[in-house]
């Protein structure tokens, strides 16, 4: 038996606030969709060289969008930032620049309307990246173990095997991560219909249990009013008949350990352990569908500080994330073979031998440890850097965290 991958020490990147990252990205961030083309062109020569692209699309004064941009650009995986603005948009770019600067990161801002337009802005941006990249190589390294890791858990494109192979295998991994002192976040409160009572029974305090039930009930009410749940064509073709059947399978990802809190997007866990991320808006229907697609929820988990995302898929999702690299766990061997360039782990083996589920969990653990130590995941190596920030509205979850004072502090 080889060494437990979760006790291995690896080198992370030390940030001024003491947090440690598993990547040292230079992130180019556009502050309105009108600046996306210029921002993307700036990154093109540096594809797969550690330069990532994120942005906020809307020309709308969105406090929520602003907060998520702040949290992503001061994420421990981010070493330096280039902001790209058009100039006349509603986004508070000076505030964002000041926040990133105050975090101790190198940051520069380009305003297209003040820089002579598209071509000159692209040239200027690429010159800044060429200057920043060598400096990032001198970032201070610091030792990390699994106890320092925050891992986001997601499923996308579920089929009937997701809840039998991939999600239970991830559940075993989650228990091991938490036992090693690490932290896991599960989102998709709109895919836990029917699991609320069981999850609440695992809560560390009665207040957290009540917060779980309230949060999932809010998701149900919101989706009933929308007339649409997180359940669609691919799920049905794959053999799932109801949202609660899909939910029961998704729930297996979060293992068996106690639940330590309920978070909202951008809020960091107040300690180690297992957390539920509320991703359904605290508003009337004005913000529309809360789970537009998987990268939307994955980006919300990244904004909570997840270093990596473990993403199970049955039908075969190929997406990544710009700040938090995504590890793909296939639910069945046929899809794993069809999409082998995209999948990191084949959990289809879980039903192919008596100890298959354990073997799949072992492989997930090994791949997470390798990715944390710097090995690119499949989606990362393919250049996937999906990131999606919508507008939205959330109230802090009353009683959602064990230590509200500490939770407030992490949000400040």
């Amino acid at each position, binding site marked *: 038996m080889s060494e437990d991958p979760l006790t291995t020490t690896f080198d992370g990147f030390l940030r001024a606030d003491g947090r440690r990252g598993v990547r040292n990205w230079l992130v180019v961030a556009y502050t309105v969709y009108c600046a996306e083309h210029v921002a993307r062109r700036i990154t093109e020569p540096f594809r797969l060289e550690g330069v990532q692209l994120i942005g906020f699309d809307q020309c709308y004064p969105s406090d929520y969008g602003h907060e998520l941009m702040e949290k992503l650009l001061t994420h421990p995986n981010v070493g330096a930032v280039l902001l790209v603005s058009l100039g006349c948009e509603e986004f508070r770019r000076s505030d964002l620049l000041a926040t990133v600067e105050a975090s101790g990161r190198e940051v520069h801002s380009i305003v297209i309307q003040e820089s002579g337009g598209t071509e000159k802005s692209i040239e200027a941006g690429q010159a800044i990246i060429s200057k920043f990249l060598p400096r990032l190589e001198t970032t201070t390294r610091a030792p990390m173990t699994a106890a320092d890791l925050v891992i986001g858990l997601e499923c996308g494109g579920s089929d009937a095997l997701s809840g039998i192979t991939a999600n239970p295998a991830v559940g075993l991994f989650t228990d091991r991560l938490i036992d090693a002192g690490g932290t896991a976040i599960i989102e998709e409160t709109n895919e836990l219909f029917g699991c609320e009572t069981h999850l609440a029974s695992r809560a560390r305090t009665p207040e957290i249990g009540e917060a779980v039930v309230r949060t999932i009930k809010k998701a149900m009410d919101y989706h009933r009013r929308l007339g649409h749940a997180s*359940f669609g064509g691919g799920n*049905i*073709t794959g*053999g799932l*008949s109801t*949202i*609660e*059947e899909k939910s029961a399978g998704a729930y297996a990802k979060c293992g068996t350990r106690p639940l330590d809190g309920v978070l909202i997007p951008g809020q960091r866990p107040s300690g180690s352990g297992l957390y539920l991320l509320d991703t359904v808006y605290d508003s009337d229907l004005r913000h529309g569908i809360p789970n537009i697609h998987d990268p939307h929820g994955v980006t919300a988990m990244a904004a909570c500080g997840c270093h990596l995302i473990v993403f199970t898929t049955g039908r075969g999702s190929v997406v990544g994330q710009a700040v938090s690299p995504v590890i793909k766990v296939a639910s069945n061997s046929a899809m794993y073979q069809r999409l082998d360039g995209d999948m990191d782990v084949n959990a289809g083996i879980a039903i192919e031998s008596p100890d298959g589920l354990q073997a799949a969990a072992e492989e997930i653990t090994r791949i997470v440890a390798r990715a944390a130590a710097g090995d690119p995941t499949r989606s990362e190596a393919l250049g996937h850097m999906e990131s999606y920030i919508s507008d939205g509205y959330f109230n802090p979850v009353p009683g959602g965290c064990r230590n509200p004072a500490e939770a407030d502090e992490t949000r400040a």
Partner: protein
Amino acid sequence: MDAIVLNPKDNVAVVLREVAPCESLQIGEGDVTALDRIPYGHKIARHDIPQGEHILKYGMPVGQAKSDIPRGGHVHMHNVVSVYMDNLQEHYE
């Protein structure tokens, strides 16, 4: 293995290959004859499931029978309804 029963309480099993009508499947301790074509990953009734009864998978209710489902029948959208949200929308592939 033709099919998997996820919890002993379950009244459905998940087939692990496409099953043709009249095929006999070894499910747990007994044989069940499939009444319908059942695609890979879909559910087959292990017992007769009367209308209104819960569909049990993982030992958890995952929907309700909207008509009587005979042992060996395909259990899916045509005979299952969600307790939480109807699936009335058109879904596309």
